[in-house]
């Protein structure tokens, strides 16, 4: 049952009700603007010309204020600035938002504060300003170590720029991650092996390695449908994935999630928490949130259009909170999300957590998947095997099938 207004869920209506074991809390802040929109991207992104810095402060602060009605107690363990290109955010706004978060919930002393950065908008001075504002982990969207591939992907930076940015970031932030997109049209297995080796040679502690996916409603979708380029076939894509797993593991960065690799202790804490079913407040246009309340787990979805989101929050009429939807998730929903996200993790989901949700699993089907070597044999845990990871969507589908 969707309902619009946050106050219905406000803890003030249930004074004294506190969630017994409140999950870890994170804040996701979405900055939807980019200098250039990449042709593969289907996120909620908008050209930077739509941005007017002054107004946005109001929106973000009001959104945080509303979020506090949903979950009042902290501390906030992780903050993630995603986008869009949040490295375009004025560092002082970032600093002010972190201060506001600290004021409302308390920001843990060892909080992980991540920000996604485009090598173009990451000159050293800017990186230092971001660090000064409180960012301690940078996720750098390098995407490719190949000039032609960068051009194809619509990236406006060069290989050299990306390298420089990565090296500079290493000296500034506690942690730096590097993003790459592979299984691109025309890319051979050998080429990817070579490119991955070059990335690993930079000795990152964390890498997000995504296979290129053609998403609906993107420029790539149309071009692909029109036959302008051909995607690698399933066998090659699978080979590339397997090579990635082996190379990264050999270099000391085993996968901890389908597309994420890290040295021990370097996994992204914010994302880990969301895959594990933790709470996160979704702040910013189109941002999703999940919050445990006295009535159950609540899903929030902010208005996607930046102007609409801002208008809603700036007016604040009738408690308007910038949300397109705020709804209580049913047991089935929570169960499905727990499986869907949890199975992405190499560690899987403890069976005890699934059992606590009260939605029965099909024991026969799970036994079949275990027998087929797609799920780990350990009965205390639901986790896909290395072999199963390439088939995760089907496995999830089978586990969740009626």
């Amino acid at each position, binding site marked *: 049952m969707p309902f619009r207004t946050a106050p219905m869920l406000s803890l003030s209506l249930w004074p004294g009700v506190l969630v017994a074991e409140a999950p870890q809390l994170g804040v*996701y802040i*979405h900055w939807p603007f980019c200098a250039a929109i990449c042709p593969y991207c289907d996120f909620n992104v908008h050209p930077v010309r739509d941005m007017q810095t002054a107004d946005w402060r109001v929106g973000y602060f009001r959104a945080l204020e509303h979020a506090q009605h949903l979950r009042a107690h902290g501390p906030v363990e992780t903050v993630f600035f995603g986008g869009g290109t949040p490295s375009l955010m004025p560092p002082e706004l970032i600093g002010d938002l972190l201060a506001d978060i600290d004021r409302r919930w308390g920001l843990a002393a060892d909080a992980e504060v991540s920000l996604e950065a485009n090598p173009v908008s990451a000159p050293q001075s800017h990186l230092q300003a971001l660090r000064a504002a409180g960012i301690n982990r940078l996720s750098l969207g390098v995407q490719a170590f190949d000039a032609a591939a960068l051009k194809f992907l619509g990236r406006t930076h060069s290989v050299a720029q990306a390298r420089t940015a990565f090296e500079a970031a290493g000296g500034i932030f506690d942690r730096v991650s590097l993003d790459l997109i592979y299984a691109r049209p025309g890319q051979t297995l050998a080429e990817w092996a070579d490119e991955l080796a070059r990335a690993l040679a930079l000795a990152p502690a964390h890498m997000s390695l*995504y*296979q*290129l*996916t053609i998403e609906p409603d993107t420029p790539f979708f149309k071009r692909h449908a029109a036959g302008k380029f051909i995607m690698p076939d*399933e*066998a090659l*894509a*699978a080979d590339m*994935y397997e090579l990635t797993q082996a190379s990264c593991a050999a270099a000391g960065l085993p996968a901890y999630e*389908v*597309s994420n690799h890290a040295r021990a202790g370097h996994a992204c804490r914010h*994302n880990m928490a*969301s*895959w594990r079913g933790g709470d*996160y407040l*979704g702040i910013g246009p*189109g*941002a*999703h949130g*999940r919050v445990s309340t006295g009535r159950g787990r609540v*899903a929030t*979805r902010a208005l996607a259009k930046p102007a609409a989101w801002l208008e809603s929050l700036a007016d604040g009429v009738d408690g308007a909170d910038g949300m397109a939807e705020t709804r209580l998730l049913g047991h089935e*929903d929570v169960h*499905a*999300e727990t499986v*869907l*996200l949890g199975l*992405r993790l190499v560690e899987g989901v403890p069976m005890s957590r699934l059992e606590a949700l009260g939605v029965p699993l099909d024991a026969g089907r799970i036994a*079949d*998947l275990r027998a*087929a070597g*797609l799920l780990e044999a350990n009965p205390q845990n639901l986790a896909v095997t290395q072999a199963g*990871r*390439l*088939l*995760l*969507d*089907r*496995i*999830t*589908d*089978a586990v*969740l*099938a*009626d």
Partner: protein
Amino acid sequence: MSVQKNIRNFAIIAHIDHGKSTLADRLIQITGGLSTREMQEQVLDNMELERERGITIKAQTVRLDYEASDGQTYQLNLIDTPGHVDFAYEVNRSLAACEGSLLVVDASQGVEAQTLANVYQAIEVDHEIVPVLNKVDLPAADCPRVCGQIEDVIGLDTAGAVNISAKTGLGVDDVLEAIVTQLPAPDGDADAPLKAMLVDSWYDAYLGVVVLVRVIDGTLKKGQKIRMMSTGATHLVDQVGVFRPKRETVSDLGPGEIGYFTAAIKQVADTRVGDTVTEDRAPCADILDGFKPSQPVVFCGLFPTDSSQFEDLREAMAKLRLNDASFDYEMETSAALGFGFRCGFLGLLHLEIIRERIEREFDIDLITTAPSVVYHLHMNDGSMVELHNPADMPDIVKIDHIDEPWIDASILVPDEYLGAVLKLCEDRRGRQKNLSYAGSRAMLEYALPLNEVVFDFYDRLKSATRGYASFDYQLSAYKTGDLVKMSILVNAEPVDALSTIVHRERAEMRGRAMCERLKDLIPRHLFKIPIQAALGGKIIARETIAALRKDVTAKCYGGDVSRKRKLLDKQKEGKKKMRQFGKVDIPQDAFISALKMDD
């Protein structure tokens, strides 16, 4: 009652598209049966499906009053016969109700196999036949050649042939004159006890069952108590009439006349085509020759795609059966497909028509299983069991031998495709009986087992000859064959809806073809799926569907989970179009597509 000597009863024999219905429309128009305004193209083909396919399913009649050049008025009764071999028996009865036929041949195309079969039937019932060359206005028309063909192939004198264009009306008057002058008046004794032939019947929502009859002797009138001689059932006649083509009541029908009666008959199944109708208190001495109840020859399973529509399907079947007694059904349960019906049809076209009517008129999505013929299982204990469904095959050790139905097929094909047709017939266990030529076209006669024809023979014939071959058949006899039940195992489990009866020599080839097709039809799963064809416990063919290698979303963080769930739900919808069998999802259309062969 009209003067008997001024009655002419005739049928029109023509291949599909050669202009039968157009000519009928013209005749009705010229004799004033309907005003131009009332004319609906092809008035005789009422049913939507009939009009779409250009075929006639039920026999229809129309009475025309024609003032001939001799100054006398004639009563012309046209019976429009079903044009397809599936309804051969109905054709036979319709022809038996007339004294003559018009043989309509497209002057640009020539004689087709199907036409031949009907002409031979007409000759068998002693018809006078008037050749009518249609479409003579087309540039491609070649009347002398087609006349030659009619004389050579059929052996008819074409001296009295009429050249027409039914489309423009050219020569249609000559057709009417030819009917009057060349066809005989009917025989019959008005004073004898009533004897009428039941030509057809159908259900009318207002009148109940309407029975079409040809009176042979005596008089049929309102208030009479009539008797159906095959069943002994009696009914009180409450209406007698004719079609002009609009329905019109008359006081009575005398010898030679064709018309209808109603008698509060509840269902079409109570009226049998070919039966003799007489008066209960003064019955005629003997029944008419040639009566035989219709026998379904092709069987298949019809299952609702959505199993919750089973009751709707039952209702639909019952409604269709009201008007089509030749269609049989009984409930069937399949492990793979759930509840459905095993249905018997007169032939493949009949099957298609019923299936389409259920889907269109009742909006029920159907899964059709492979059509099968009726096998005669001769058991060791001397009994004979009819097998309609391969899944019901009893233990082989109890069977002494199996007989299967054979057909006599005639195929007319342009010379250049003869090789391909011969190969097709030989591949299908055919035995050539005759090969003759009509100009550049070969006329092939083959004996073929019906089970080799029932599924895709016609499609294969069409594609092997680019549509130039025409094909017709009639059932000949049951013959013993080395027949075996071939099971298909998907992931080591037999799928009942895919089992078939095949000839032992053909089993391996068919098994291989089915496995290959299923390999393409069944989507890949998380595990590899063996597909096997087996005779008893012996595997004769095998394919393996490789396991899926990759299906994983690259990027999914907290915010993407809602979208991911929507995708999952969409996939579930897609899965509804599949049937789960064991651990394998089999697409619905696979049950019939698996049998299509690319030979």
